[in-house]
């Protein structure tokens, strides 16, 4: 009989149910994803990531190997350069961050491993000598590569930094796949690409100048080629020196190839400017104004006039001057054939314009346009002022037009213009001034606006001339247009000047900037470039010094610009000409010295890498606990595992705190952060469950000691434990103080833009709903004022009481108490590892950048409370899922016992299932409470922020589904339909399927969610 039992370890029913549960946990996600997210077949095929998933597993292994294999060779100190403040995507960051993003894109690594050039050219030899002193492959800082490309592009032409790793691509380009050591080539050089005939031909085909037939590529290879081309263009842009003269005509293939996008942008801006001018030239009113004599300060460069040789005395009117300038500029936009047709090329084969010439022409255009616009506006203003004066003072005679506007410089011109236009009509009421009809006034306004637009376009073009797009923006701009709260956003005027513009921008463009500091920056740059290229033995020291001086020079310059900009803003605001957004002004000031230090540290320290690495160590030790049958080793491994996990939790926490300080927003708001946070919560909860045996007594004691005011029960218990009540009374005082603090925080300190508190003492509206909401707020306020200090006090006190408790217990007992619960910590470790590892190694899917959030997510209070609660519940659900799976494993493969009961035989599942069920219940309870709270908070946030409580959108529905599934489990437990087995099964279903879907990604950037879906599809597809 006994034997029979042994042979069939588990009942058939259990097997069937386990199989069903597993089928559901695996099947639902796959079908749900495929059915749920209609990604077209073509999309997933074309997706560039789709192709290289095959190798990603091995690549990860390779990458993680790399990070430990090689360190840095001796290089100069790049830290000063790396900390240079740079304005990028709405935030001031250290140059290091920007360079890392860029390096990750071009080379596929933030700190790529680069091998020395093997060419024979003198540049390659010099590069090998100075950049690879020991002749070996070495790792480069992203900032170093950036500097190298900007300072000495010729040295980098033969150093492999371009990502071209895909085998299909390399085969089509006839590039070798493996080197002599049989390891795969991943990178290529600019020189190699330029020499590659296939690539060359493909580029020619883009420019439309391919002579013979262009080879056809599959869509995948084409997309890889485009990426490669884009990256090559980016490198060229870094090396591009805009101070070199521009050819008068463009669209020569070589030029297009070299300058790729930046030049294109300049040309498109220029085209827009010219067409705006042309349109104005057709407008008779505009033309008339332009033909008036110009003011002396219009800024016509006499040199330009001479160069054109049209009029030795310089053009007399703005009309002529701008016409000449536009003609000159227009030559830049002609295609070579058109230029030839106009005889430009034939007459002047090497016709070029220097940057300063182009800039001067644009400056002229800009100044004329701006002054004309102001003239017209002044005229309008004066007209209406006169009208008003006449209205108020009756018919007061003719002086109104020229009187009372001392600061306006052109009353004469104005009346002249008006007379020219209107011939001094006389109205019925005897007024002698000109009278404009409504349509004329509208025309006047429109023309003024068009001139203003022209000025803005011209100004944008001037910046585009030297602004090479990915180059770092290093100092605030003195142009106030981007600070205007009402700007339309179509102009391309930068809010910070980029390095190239500072180094070689046109004289007139930088005329307002502090001169000496500007010159100092340029000199420091030249020094640094010289030191970079030198092959002297003290290169490293010299370079480090000159880099530090360069950064310091930029800082001095930036601070001088700050002062100048403030003065300019004050002056412009005083005369009411410009409106600036004060917050934008603060956001774009040149920052303090320490502003970027923390982020630089964060980049270098990589806390999340430490997190997954330590979690991995912990997982390994917990694996030993499972696999090694020696109790002593098990105990030791368990302790080691817990230690590593603790370390992992600490580094993760550090990472979050750093990110919070750097980005100045609630910590868990992007997909990257959410994913890591789920693992973090799982680890914390796992540790908490494991150590519960140790902490419970201490926590109880802390609660008891901090209980106040003293009730009867508490007094009784205190007396029983022989404790004095004095300590509790002290706590009570502290509690009152903390309560006041929380009251002030919640209901007094203004929060958000409207200056209301989080829980205001006065109702926000008068409707019944508002009043009720206000009352609920008041109750919440009272509750938080009363209970939060208590919790804080207990938490603080628990540190002491737990330690005290631990001191009074034997170590072996403590280990036993925790060891028997080790499974929770193990699950936590696995989750912490998996989530952080994924987030860290898939930056394309989980964008680690600390960018600004969408404006709707601007409310930090709600964002933090809602998202933290929800993600924490996922963490708890993750633990429940892990426990459930392990329990199911025991149900399937564990040893069943049978005992006789009331005459029949009862089969009992393994003992451990009971324990697991209890943990499982606990984690489900935590998960469901947090999830419900989080969902309700989300609904309240939606109601408060955008006026709908519940709208049945996908993320809401899925969190509701999750809640319901957990509710079914919890209720089913009471009905007796679900035993411990059902709990285990339910936990796996509930967590696995429902929580993540749609819920997380919605709060992140939309592109994040799309990438996330693709990624999930890929992973599922591969499984």
């Amino acid at each position, binding site marked *: 009989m006994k034997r029979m039992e042994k042979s069939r370890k588990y009942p058939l029913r259990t097997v069937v149910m386990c199989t069903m549960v597993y089928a559901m946990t695996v099947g639902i996600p796959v079908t749900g994803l495929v059915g749920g997210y209609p990604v077209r077949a073509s999309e997933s095929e074309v997706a560039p990531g789709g192709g290289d998933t095959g190798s990603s597993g091995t690549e990860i292994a390779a990458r993680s190997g790399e990070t430990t294999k090689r360190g840095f060779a001796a290089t100069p100190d790049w830290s000063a350069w790396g900390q240079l403040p740079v304005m990028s995507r709405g935030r001031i960051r250290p140059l290091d961050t920007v360079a890392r993003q860029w390096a990750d894109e071009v080379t596929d690594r933030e700190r790529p491993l680069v091998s020395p050039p093997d060419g024979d050219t003198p540049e390659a030899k010099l590069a090998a000598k100075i950049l690879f002193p020991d002749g070996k492959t070495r790792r480069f800082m992203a900032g170093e590569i950036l500097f190298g490309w900007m300072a000495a592009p010729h040295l980098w032409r033969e150093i492999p930094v371009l990502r071209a790793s895909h085998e299909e691509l390399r085969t089509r380009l006839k590039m070798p796949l493996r080197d002599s050591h049989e390891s795969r080539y991943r990178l290529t050089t600019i020189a190699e690409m330029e020499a590659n005939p296939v690539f060359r031909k493909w580029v020619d085909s883009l420019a439309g100048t391919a002579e013979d037939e262009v080879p056809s590529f599959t869509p995948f290879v084409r997309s890889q080629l485009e990426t490669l081309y884009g990256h090559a263009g980016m490198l060229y842009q870094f090396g591009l020196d805009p101070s070199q003269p521009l050819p008068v005509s463009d669209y020569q293939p070589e030029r297009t190839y070299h300058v790729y996008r930046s030049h294109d942008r300049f040309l498109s801006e220029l085209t827009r400017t010219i067409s705006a001018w042309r349109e104005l030239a057709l407008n008779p009113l505009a033309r008339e104004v332009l033909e008036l004599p110009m003011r002396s300060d219009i800024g016509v460069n006499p040199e330009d006039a001479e160069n054109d040789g049209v009029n030795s005395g310089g053009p007399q009117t703005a009309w002529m001057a701008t016409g000449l300038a536009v003609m000159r500029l227009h030559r830049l936009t002609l295609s070579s054939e058109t230029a030839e047709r106009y005889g430009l090329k034939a007459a002047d084969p090497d016709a070029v314009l220097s940057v300063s010439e182009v800039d001067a022409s644009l400056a002229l255009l800009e100044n004329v346009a701006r002054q004309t616009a102001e003239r017209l506006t002044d005229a309008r203003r004066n007209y209406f002022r006169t009208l008003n004066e006449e209205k108020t003072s009756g018919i007061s005679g003719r002086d109104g037009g020229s009187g009372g506007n001392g600061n306006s410089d052109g009353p004469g011109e104005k009346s002249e213009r008006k007379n020219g236009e209107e011939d001094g009509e006389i109205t019925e009421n005897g007024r002698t001034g000109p009278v404009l009809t409504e349509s004329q006034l509208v025309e006047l306004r429109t023309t003024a606006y068009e001139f203003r637009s022209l000025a803005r376009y011209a100004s944008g073009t001037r910046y585009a001339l030297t602004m090479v797009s990915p180059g770092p923006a290093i100092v605030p701009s003195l142009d106030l247009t981007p600070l205007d709260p009402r700007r339309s*956003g179509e102009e391309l005027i930068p809010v910070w000047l980029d390095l190239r513009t500072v180094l070689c921008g046109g004289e007139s463009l930088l005329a307002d900037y502090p001169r000496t500091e500007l010159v100092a920056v340029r000199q420091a740059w030249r020094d640094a470039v010289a030191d970079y290229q030198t092959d002297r033995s003290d290169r490293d020291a010299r370079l480090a010094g000159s880099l530090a001086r360069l950064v310091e020079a930029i800082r001095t310059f930036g601070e001088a610009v700050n002062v100048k900009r403030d003065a300019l803003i004050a002056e412009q605001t005083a005369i009411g000409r410009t409106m600036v957004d004060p917050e934008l002004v603060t956001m774009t000031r040149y920052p303090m010295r320490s502003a970027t230090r923390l982020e630089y540290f964060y980049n270098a320290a990589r806390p999340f890498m430490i997190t997954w690495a330590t979690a991995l160590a912990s997982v390994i030790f917990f694996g030993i606990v499972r696999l090694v049958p020696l109790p002593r080793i098990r105990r030791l491994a368990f302790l080691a595992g817990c230690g590593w996990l603790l370390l992992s939790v600490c580094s993760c926490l550090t990472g979050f705190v750093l990110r919070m300080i750097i980005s100045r927003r609630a910590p868990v708001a992007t997909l990257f952060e959410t994913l890591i946070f789920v693992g973090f919560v799982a680890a914390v909860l796992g540790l908490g469950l494991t150590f519960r045996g140790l902490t419970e007594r201490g926590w109880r004691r802390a609660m008891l000691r901090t209980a106040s005011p003293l009730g009867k029960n508490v007094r009784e218990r205190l007396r029983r434990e022989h404790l004095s009540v004095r300590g509790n009374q002290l706590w009570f005082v502290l509690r009152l103080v903390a309560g006041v603090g929380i009251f002030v925080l919640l209901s007094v300190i203004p929060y958000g833009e409207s200056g209301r508190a989080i829980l205001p003492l006065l109702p926000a509206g008068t409707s019944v709903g*508002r009043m009720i909401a206000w009352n609920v707020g008041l109750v919440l306020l009272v509750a938080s004022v009363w209970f939060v200090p208590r919790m804080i006090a207990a938490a603080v006190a628990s540190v002491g009481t737990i330690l005290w408790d631990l001191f009074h217990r034997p170590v072996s007992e403590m280990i036993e108490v925790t060891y028997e619960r080790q499974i929770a910590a193990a699950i936590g470790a696995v989750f912490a590892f998996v989530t952080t590892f994924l987030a860290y190694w898939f930056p394309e899917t989980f964008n680690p950048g600390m960018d600004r959030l969408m404006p709707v997510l*601007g409310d930090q209070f709600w964002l933090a409370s809602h998202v933290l609660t929800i993600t924490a519940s996922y963490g708890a659900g993750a633990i429940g899922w892990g426990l459930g799976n392990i329990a199911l494993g025991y149900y399937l493969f564990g040893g069943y016992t049978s005992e006789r009961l009331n005459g029949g035989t009862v089969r009992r599942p393994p003992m451990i299932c009971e324990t697991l069920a209890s943990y499982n219940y606990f984690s489900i309870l935590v998960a469901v409470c947090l999830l419900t*709270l989080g969902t*309700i908070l989300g609904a*309240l946030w939606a109601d408060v922020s955008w006026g709908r409580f519940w709208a049945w959108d996908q993320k809401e529905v899925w969190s509701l589904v999750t809640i319901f599934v957990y509710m079914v489990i919890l*209720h089913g437990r009471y009905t007796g339909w679900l035993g411990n087995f059902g709990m285990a099964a339910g936990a796996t279903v509930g967590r696995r399927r429902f929580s993540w879907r749609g819920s997380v990604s919605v709060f992140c950037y939309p592109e994040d969610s799309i990438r996330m879906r693709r990624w999930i599809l890929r992973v599922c597809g591969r499984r």
Partner: protein
Amino acid sequence: MGRRWLGWLGSLRLAVVVLSLYAVTVGWATLVDNRYGATAVAWGIYRSVWFAALNVLLGLNVLCSALVRFPWKKRQIGFLMIHTGILSLMIGSAVTWRGGVDGVIGVFEGRGASRIVTDTRILEVTVDGKSQTIPLEPGPFSWSMLRSAGTDESALSRFPWRLSGNGRPRTIFRDASIRIELVDWLAQVRLVPADDAAHTMVDLTEEAEKTVTPGSSGDFPRWTVETSSPVPVEVTIRPVPFPGKDATRADREAWVDRGLRAARLRVHTLRDGGPATKTSGTPGGSGAGVPGAENPEVEDYWLLLDESEAARFRRMAGDLLTPDVLTDAESLEQVRYASLLTPEMTSQTIHPGNRTVTLSLRSLDVDAGFGVTLRRFDRRFNPGSRQASHYASQIDLTEPDGTMILADQRITMNEPIEFRGVRLFQTSWRGPWAPGHPFYDAIEPVESEESGLYMTVLSANRDPGSGWKYVGSFLLLVGMTIVFVRKAGGVK
């Protein structure tokens, strides 16, 4: 007996069943959402009769489970709070659903507005001067599609759309002599030249002057559009096919969310009062009925409703923008906001049996009860980018007649204001329109300085259920906490 029923309704077993059912249903609903879009799923599931029944069942279950435990003990406080909280939330949602108003107010800078433009469609029937509005929920699909749903040629899957209880022919007016039925609904139609079935769109916006004369015959109505070109164009409406299952989500949503809709109304003249006389408006299709004593006279009429972005904008702009201005803007090719419908196409007057019946189909707009005047619209970009980080409207609140009540209020993202039961939220904006643009020249007074003109779009809602929801949320939050503390304390 009653006790037994109460016990059954409040049983845990029912709770488990209802919760599972609910979870499966809404989970399924998201799949439908993915396939047919949010509008479709809201109409077909969330606002359907059976879903309401499920909600009621859940509510009853929650209520009874609390009632059967009466008298309550002290330890049940958490349980009670959670269950009353859920009930309160459900009641709040129901109240909002019945009596809430949700729409947008668009205000130009320097101008005022007081009407909330909603997405609710209404049919207005005026019989002999007495007017009555009938809210319509015809759904996002043509009714013929619903009828064929589940068959092979249908683009809709085997989803029980018709179970929703919406989207069926019904009588909208009836008295002793006439009966008006809404017999068909075309969710998406296009105006095409009558003779050309090639589905070329007729761009009625091209010409400033056009008159539309209804014509007759065929399944679909005909209109004659007279433009300044010598030959008048005869147009008919044609349903646009649903993009189908394999189309992208964007395509399907585009199909659902904008365009022309058409309703087919059938007028039965019950008492024989001689043939119906028509002065304006013409029957669209030939009625099937034969006039006679026993067979009432039956005639069909088509009404069009424009739900395009253009129509929405025009309704928000109110009468600030004349059709001329809109057409000018159209011709500038900068904003395609102009609308192409003329009043004749959205409403018809007919005279069945010597009665006067005016039918019109439109979206509902509601008077907010006060005026909103926009002083200024501000928008901030993240520095160095064109990603808006913040936008705000500086508004005045006035009486409908313009008397100032509250001056200089600021509405930003996440900072709504409430006034007279209506909450105003910053949603989005239109513009800026520059001087020279017809909108700008039409709206801005001549004296104003040149700078862009914005229109702020505020979402406005009146939510009578919000009190219930807040109380419910509060009870739920507190109850959850209590239960958690109790239960978690019990777990070793």
